[in-house]
């Protein structure tokens, strides 16, 4: 009998997150403590998981240097500890920590239900974190579902029930549809290659010449569609604006960022590692999705009257930009972009939740009139974050965009880069529109206080946007080292 090889080290961060979630729920049931105790438990599990991830990173680099890449495969090939998994996991943990801080006012306002919200956030992170580390496609699906199901519930948790329920059902129906499409793609890949594991599929495809690759190719297309939904790439983006608008504003940034990180790491792993032999088949599809997302996202965002819908469509455009990195086969470009964009997204929605109230749905652009006098700090940090998203030089967004565009250019997709630059220019228009409204219109409404936890989130978003824009070396080096197996 073969005993399965267990390596708890490989999944220790996820275990910590799950334990944190269970701990929060149990402590709430048993002692009904102050909210800050629950927050401390959650923060503890996230911080320890992040610290452990750093140890994993050191371990993995040592193993790669020693040439013992076999050590990076755990649980008989289910889970990987390669650079890409650890980098993705670390970004997910960072987003989780800042997401809880950004949504803290909303979580507190839930009363007795706040423990559930914290537990759901931790469980979603555990799921997506296992997803970025999985080698086996069924494992990846399980991680995706653990994360997604938690997010469906979070989307419907706001007290403004009518809009929140609507966001939840739309997210749920389209999200489960996407999951079903993804797993059908996995099933067809299995039928075509006989393998579930990404590395085994790569091995199989490079060793064997498939006489009729039709089944595996359809599977590839379905996997792209399924994950395209999850990262809200056009034409699969229709759920994103409604969910961003209806879900509780304190947590939208977290929800959007974490799904994008996990989705894109999964896309990179499946397409660039597992199915690189099919490159000629999927490159045109991915390039088409990228071009459509960038153009549609930037243009539709121009006409939105609600800041959250605008950020949702800008998210569609950003999904297109990251897809250019997939076309350019540059995992470092994708990871750098994800890290930069995820923090900006959490920061941007932290501003939205400060302006429109933590649980409130809807945030008309008129609510931002004269924000520069009502709350100079909010307005200034929102402006920096928006300029970073737009990709102004000397912000991290510029370096991120430059990286993915350069990689796509070097693989011969010049037209895609031209479309991308065009879309970035269009995107400037709507980012500037918000900034103009904030700084150049008259003061309307009262002064806005900024809660303490939000200040930290905004500070981190602003500082990273500027520091990685001027001195991107450290993050670039980490992203370049974060290679998939």
């Amino acid at each position: 009998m073969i005993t399965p090889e267990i390596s708890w080290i490989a999944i220790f961060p996820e275990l910590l997150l799950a334990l944190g979630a269970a701990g929060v729920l149990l402590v709430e049931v048993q002692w009904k403590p102050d909210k800050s105790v629950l927050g401390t438990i959650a923060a503890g599990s996230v911080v320890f998981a992040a610290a452990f991830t750093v140890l994993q990173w050191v371990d993995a680099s040592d193993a790669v240097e020693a040439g013992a890449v076999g050590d990076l495969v755990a649980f008989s090939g289910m889970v990987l500890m390669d650079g890409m998994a650890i980098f993705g996991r670390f970004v997910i943990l960072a987003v989780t920590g800042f997401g809880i801080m950004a949504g803290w006012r909303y979580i507190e306002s839930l009363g007795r239900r706040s423990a559930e919200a914290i537990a759901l956030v931790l469980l979603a992170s555990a799921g997506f974190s296992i997803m970025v580390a999985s080698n086996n496609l069924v494992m990846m699906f399980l991680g995706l579902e653990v994360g997604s199901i938690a997010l469906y519930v979070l989307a419907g948790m706001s007290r403004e029930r009518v809009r929140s329920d609507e966001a939840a059902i739309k997210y749920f129906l389209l999200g489960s549809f996407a999951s079903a499409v993804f797993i059908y793609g996995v099933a067809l890949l299995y039928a075509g290659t006989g393998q579930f594991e990404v590395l085994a599929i790569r091995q199989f495809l490079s060793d064997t010449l498939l006489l009729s690759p039709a089944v595996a190719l359809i599977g590839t297309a379905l996997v792209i569609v399924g994950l395209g939904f999850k990262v809200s790439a056009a034409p699969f983006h229709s759920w994103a604006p409604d969910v961003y608008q209806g879900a509780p504003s304190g947590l939208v940034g977290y929800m959007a960022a974490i799904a994008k990180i996990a989705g894109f790491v999964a896309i990179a792993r499946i397409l660039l590692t597992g199915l690189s032999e099919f490159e000629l088949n999927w490159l045109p599809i991915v390039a088409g999705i990228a071009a459509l997302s960038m153009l549609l996202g930037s243009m539709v965002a121009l006409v939105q009257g609600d800041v959250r819908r605008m950020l949702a469509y800008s998210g569609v455009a950003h999904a297109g930009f990251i897809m250019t990195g997939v076309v350019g086969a540059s995992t470092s470009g994708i990871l750098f972009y994800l890290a930069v964009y995820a923090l900006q997204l959490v920061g941007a929605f932290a501003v939205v939740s400060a302006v429109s109230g933590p649980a409130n749905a809807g945030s008309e652009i008129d609510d931002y009139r004269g924000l520069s006098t009502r709350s100079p700090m909010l307005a200034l940090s929102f402006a920096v974050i928006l300029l970073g998203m737009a990709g102004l030089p000397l912000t991290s967004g510029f370096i991120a965009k430059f990286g993915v565009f350069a990689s796509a250019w070097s693989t011969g997709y010049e037209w895609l880069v031209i479309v991308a630059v065009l879309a970035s220019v269009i995107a400037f228009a709507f980012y500037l529109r918000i900034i103009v409204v904030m700084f150049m219109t008259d003061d309307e409404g009262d002064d806005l206080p900024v809660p303490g936890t939000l200040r930290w989130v905004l500070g981190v978003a602003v500082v990273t946007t500027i520091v990685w824009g001027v001195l991107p070396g450290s993050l670039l080096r980490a992203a370049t080292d974060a290679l998939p197996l």
Partner: protein
Amino acid sequence: MVDPGWYMGLAAVLFTIGSLGLLVRRNALVMFMCIELMLNAVNLTLISAGRALGDINGQVAVFFILVVAAAEVVVGLAIIVSIFRLRSTASVDELSELRG
């Protein structure tokens, strides 16, 4: 023995019915049933592929998908019930509060 290819063809038909149903039906419950149909088509594909390849992995994967489907039922029905209580309708056409 019937060739596993036929079962995979049947699964493809079921999956298509499910996805078309999701697109054309307007009742949230029926749309939800269509998703279940799609997941079961996936299960049928995995079982017949596993049988055709003589590999146990495909059949084991089915258990995981069943569990995921059950978890989706729990959350999905809760959301649908919550909506029904608020508006006494489960038609997705009535859900048009969010637009822009």
